[in-house]
């Protein structure tokens, strides 16, 4: 590994002190002269048509300034186009319908395109109704809590009182909470257009009475009709070859994202531009989306988002609701308007991870080798679009378990529950939680070690993966990864966790406590390509690194800036990272999703660093003679190799660059840069020596990171209560860029995985179609006190660089969650027995009742309870 001065070292990021001291300003912390406040009127019905709005009494109240309804909203932008080529590997970067195998990278565009339309290969059907795009305010609410209108007033108190005087009449429409209800013959449809999302369309799919009878008997009807099918190999043949076949029903809950900061936004207009203070994961990539929601051109929007209190995928390009204060402000001649989103509103409009009702069948040879996997998942997609978590679960499974035969069948059901979108490893977390316990069950039945059974099936090197539509033309290449060291993770973890000894504690009982020990793996996309890096070395001797990356809490906005500094050996104290305000001219970036930023921007900033260095070398050659390659940089100077005295200090180089102009000071930039980067470079041109570049580095394959997690739990079999005693995560993320932030991501992901398995839930009353768990105390995300106390959580990295990244780094945000969740549920099964825990979250009663009954003694498939 290269000997880096900055990369791989711990340091204090420039945003950290402000965050921990409360000085950091989030969207809600901004105040402006004459600022008004907005409150929203939310639909009390899960599905209805607004027939009348009478706001006259509200508008006549003193202190009420304006009302905004669906009629004031700009026409929704056309369905999201594929991201500019070469496409980042982000799964559903804007929350749009995801492709199965959503992680299909740019290297396999054909596969991605084919996978994006799984129904394309089916016989031609009459044109199907497309789903209307979601707009921030609506006349046809499709879930309880969907915003109908907004009121701007002098205070929130007045705005709320005004809303209590507005009369809205609704015509009720049928609604769906539990997806299986919608699949009944004659069951309700979640949308007027139908009940099942297929690609960008909506269709009607009903199961047979026989299928429903099986559901009522508590069994998932695995031969029911699916609206999408993907295959690899011959699953029938695979099962015929198997020595052991296991099949299980399965339920995973819908959870809401619940970032600590809600999607608050403040906006005002000045000199024809909209200034928007929002809460978003991405910055550069939020501009076009937000401008579209407001109905303006991207260049008319200035976005400020220096700090974001998390998003977990729910704010990839911000949120539609950010348009509300912007449009109200425009109505009020630019007067600043603040819309604070409460926790209850956040639970409604803040997005969800789709729940699963499904079935999984796996076939194994005696040595543990997988012969076939058959997976059927009904996903609760929410009301707006296909989510595709289910297909991504299949895709991920085909990577993590190199099975020769696999089939995926899925149905994406429209539910009148808060809209779904990517939530940290969408499909990836669910895949680990679903598949890992069955692998353990097979290991126990075959008498194999649980690490051994994983190693025999796990990917390595440039492993291939992916499924294809049933009638896809043959010969299409499968997707492959750029690097994979999950076996190394398992080995390293086994050693650090002392697996050989620890696993002997499996099932040991002391009084009423039983120990469970487990290992699980997880993976997710970890990098995209083709974005830009931008830096300016100014005459003050400082290097300004302009990042379009959002500061969503992962540190990637700062960590990747260090790659530029590293290229030109710039001391970190002399680097200024510019971020979080498009008015400060930032570079085009990837979305902060799909765990792609670290990989994408270490490449882009490597390119920018190289460009900066090249400019310094060329400048030195022009000033001091010789060829550019005769010069090197270091010690804040560009100097002649072999004659370090012949040098130009950086500050002086910046001045000289300005004098020379052209490519040196940013007046000429590479043509292939994104428009946003070009505009930023143009604004910064003439201020110093510029290093700007687009990532044109080669890549063959898709980039994935991997994790193995080791865990010990203690289950109280008298009460069903359990606690995690010890946890170790070992990751394959390539080169470690910043150990502290990596650890934060690994543990944060692990804890979120625990929360998914243990407590986090979204509960609905299906008679009224209304949410019951709208507060954090009853939707129960995990807390810092739900993790091991006596033995703090540990992590390690295998530190094997990815060959397609110049510094070897890969992403981590999402890969970290699946193994955590998978390990916990595996450990519980290890303690209480196989096949008992088929439903998450695993509440104490599931263990308590099922142990007494010797089988699952709870409603295995009912959704939203």
């Amino acid at each position, binding site marked *: 590994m290269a000997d880096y001065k900055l990369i791989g070292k711990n340091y204090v990021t420039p945003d950290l002190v402000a965050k921990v001291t409360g000085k950091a300003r989030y969207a809600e912390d901004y105040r402006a002269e004459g600022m008004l406040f907005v409150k929203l009127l939310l639909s009390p019905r899960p599905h209805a048509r607004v027939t009348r709005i009478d706001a006259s009494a509200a508008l006549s109240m003193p202190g009420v300034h304006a009302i905004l309804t669906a009629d004031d909203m700009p026409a929704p932008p056309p369905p999201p186009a594929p991201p500019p080529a070469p496409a980042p590997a982000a799964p559903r970067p804007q929350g749009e319908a995801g492709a199965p195998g959503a992680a299909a990278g740019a290297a396999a565009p054909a596969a991605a395109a084919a996978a994006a339309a799984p129904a394309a290969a089916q016989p031609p059907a009459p044109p199907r109704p497309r789903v209307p795009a979601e707009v921030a305010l609506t006349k046809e609410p499709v879930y309880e809590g969907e915003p109908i209108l907004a009121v701007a007033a002098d205070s929130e108190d007045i705005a709320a009182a005004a809303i209590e005087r507005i009369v*809205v009449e609704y015509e009720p429409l049928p609604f769906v909470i539990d997806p299986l209800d919608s699949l009944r013959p004659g069951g309700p449809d979640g949308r007027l257009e139908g009940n099942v999302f297929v690609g960008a369309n909506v269709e009607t799919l009903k199961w047979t009475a026989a299928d429903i009878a099986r559901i009522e008997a508590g069994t998932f009807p695995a031969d029911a009709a699916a609206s999408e099918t993907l295959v690899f190999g011959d699953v029938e043949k695979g099962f015929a070859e198997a020595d052991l076949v296991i099949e299980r029903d399965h339920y995973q809950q819908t959870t809401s994202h619940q970032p600590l900061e809600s999607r608050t936004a403040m906006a005002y207009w000045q000199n024809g531009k909209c200034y928007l203070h929002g809460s978003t994961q991405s910055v550069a990539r939020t501009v076009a989306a937000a401008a579209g929601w407001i109905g303006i051109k991207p260049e008319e929007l200035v976005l400020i988002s220096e700090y974001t209190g998390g998003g977990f995928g729910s704010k990839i390009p911000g949120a539609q609701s950010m348009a509300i204060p912007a449009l109200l402000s425009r109505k009020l001649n630019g007067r600043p308007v603040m819309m604070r989103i409460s926790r209850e509103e956040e639970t409604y409009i803040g997005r969800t991870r789709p729940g699963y009702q499904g079935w999984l069948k796996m076939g194994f040879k005696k040595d543990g080798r997988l012969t076939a996997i058959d997976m059927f998942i009904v996903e609760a997609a929410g009301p707006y679009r296909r989510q595709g978590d289910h297909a991504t679960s299949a895709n991920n499974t085909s990577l993590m378990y190199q099975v020769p035969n696999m089939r995926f069948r899925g149905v994406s059901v429209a539910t009148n529950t808060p809209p779904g979108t990517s939530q940290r490893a969408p499909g990836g977390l669910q895949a680990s939680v679903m598949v890992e316990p069955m692998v353990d069950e097979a290991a126990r039945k075959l008498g194999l070690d649980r690490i051994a059974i994983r190693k025999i099936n796990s990917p390595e090197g440039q492993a291939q993966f992916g499924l294809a539509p049933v009638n896809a033309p043959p010969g299409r290449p499968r997707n492959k990864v750029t690097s994979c060291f999950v076996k190394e993770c398992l080995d390293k973890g086994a050693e650090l966790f002392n697996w050989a000894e620890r696993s002997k504690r499996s099932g040991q009982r002391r009084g009423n406590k039983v120990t469970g020990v487990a290992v699980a793996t997880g993976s997710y996309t970890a990098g995209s390509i083709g974005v830009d890096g931008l830096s300016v070395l100014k005459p003050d001797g400082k290097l300004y690194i302009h990042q379009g990356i959002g500061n969503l809490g992962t540190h990637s906005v700062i960590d990747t800036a260090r790659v530029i500094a590293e290229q030109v050996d710039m001391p970190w104290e002399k680097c200024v990272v510019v971020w979080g305000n498009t008015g400060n001219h930032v570079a085009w970036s990837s979305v902060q999703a799909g765990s792609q930023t670290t990989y994408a921007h270490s490449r882009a900033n490597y390119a920018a660093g190289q460009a900066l260095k090249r400019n310094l070398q060329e400048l030195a050659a022009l000033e001091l003679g010789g060829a550019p390659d005769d010069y090197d940089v270091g010690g804040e100077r560009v100097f002649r190799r072999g004659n370090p005295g012949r040098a130009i200090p950086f500050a002086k180089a910046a001045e000289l660059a300005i004098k020379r102009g052209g490519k040196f000071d940013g007046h000429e930039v590479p043509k292939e840069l994104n428009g946003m980067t070009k505009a930023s470079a143009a604004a910064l041109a003439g201020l110093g020596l510029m290093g700007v570049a687009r990532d044109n580095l080669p890549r063959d394959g898709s980039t994935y990171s991997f994790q193995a997690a080791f865990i010990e739990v203690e289950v109280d079999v008298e009460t069903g209560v359990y606690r995690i005693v010890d946890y170790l995560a070992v990751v394959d993320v390539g080169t470690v860029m910043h150990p502290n932030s990596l650890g934060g991501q690994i543990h944060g992901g692990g804890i979120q995985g625990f929360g998914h398995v243990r407590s986090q839930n979204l509960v609905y009353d299906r008679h009224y179609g209304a949410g019951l768990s709208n507060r954090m105390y009853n939707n129960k995300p995990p807390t810092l006190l739900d993790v091991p106390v006596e033995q703090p959580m540990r992590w390690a990295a295998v530190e094997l660089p990815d060959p397609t990244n110049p510094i070897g780094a890969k992403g981590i945000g999402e890969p970290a969650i699946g193994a955590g969740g998978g390990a916990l549920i595996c450990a519980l099964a290890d303690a209480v027995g196989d096949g008992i825990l088929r439903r998450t979250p695993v509440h104490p009663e599931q263990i308590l009742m099922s142990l007494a009954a010797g089988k699952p003694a709870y409603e295995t498939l009912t959704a939203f309870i």
Partner: protein
Amino acid sequence: MDFVTWALSPWGENILIRISWDLFWASLVGGILFLVAHGGYMLFSPHHKRESGEVDRMEKERAGLPARIERHSFMARVFHWVMAVAMLALVFTAFLPVVGVKFAWVYWHWMAGILLTGSIIFHVIHATFFMDFWSIWLGPRDIPEAKAEIMRDFGVEIGGPKPGKYPLGNRLYHFAVLVAGVGAIASGLLMMSRVRTPIFERNPYLMGDAAYGLTYVIHGLTGVGFVGLIIAHIYFALRPEKFWITKSMIFGTISKREYLEHHDPDRWVATK
């Protein structure tokens, strides 16, 4: 004063919840005021009783009549008192908590309701097959009697129409109780779908919000109606000039003279 209580349903609709308890107080106060007014009037007014001469004459004419005449059979009296107990239990369990006497009343209330319903089913069968069914009902031929009663109450001396077995006031009261009772029982049975009892499968969503609202309001109205009716009933039962009826409801019979004084022997032919 509000007449009914409204609430916002989970879907944001205004739904009826129940009557306002102000109506209970209105009924209670109304009943007591009536009692005071009527009592005062009876004390000081010029209202007239029939002349005793007429009764003396009839007594001579109908010497064959037995000394005691059965007015209420044993079964009829059992029914009356069972019903009375149930009714008082219902009213007290319903309204004591409203006036601030807190106790677990719902169980006793629906149990009493079941008792009341059972006794009334018995009564309907008994009255239909074993009693003079029509004797309690009101009809056009009661108009002259009503006129005469009103005239007497205003002090006009008037002879003429007498009732059959049941005086007009009796029959009017029975009719009011019948209307209120049917309303209370029907609504009460529907309301039991929202309470856990061994009798029905609990299903609070048996009807829609509006239908339940109406049911609760009907139950409330009939309930507070009973408060007034019961006050009036007890008052009249204790009035000296009506006390012979009260006694007959206890012991079953009236004297020959009471029979001839208060009844038209042709409309109610004493059998013994």
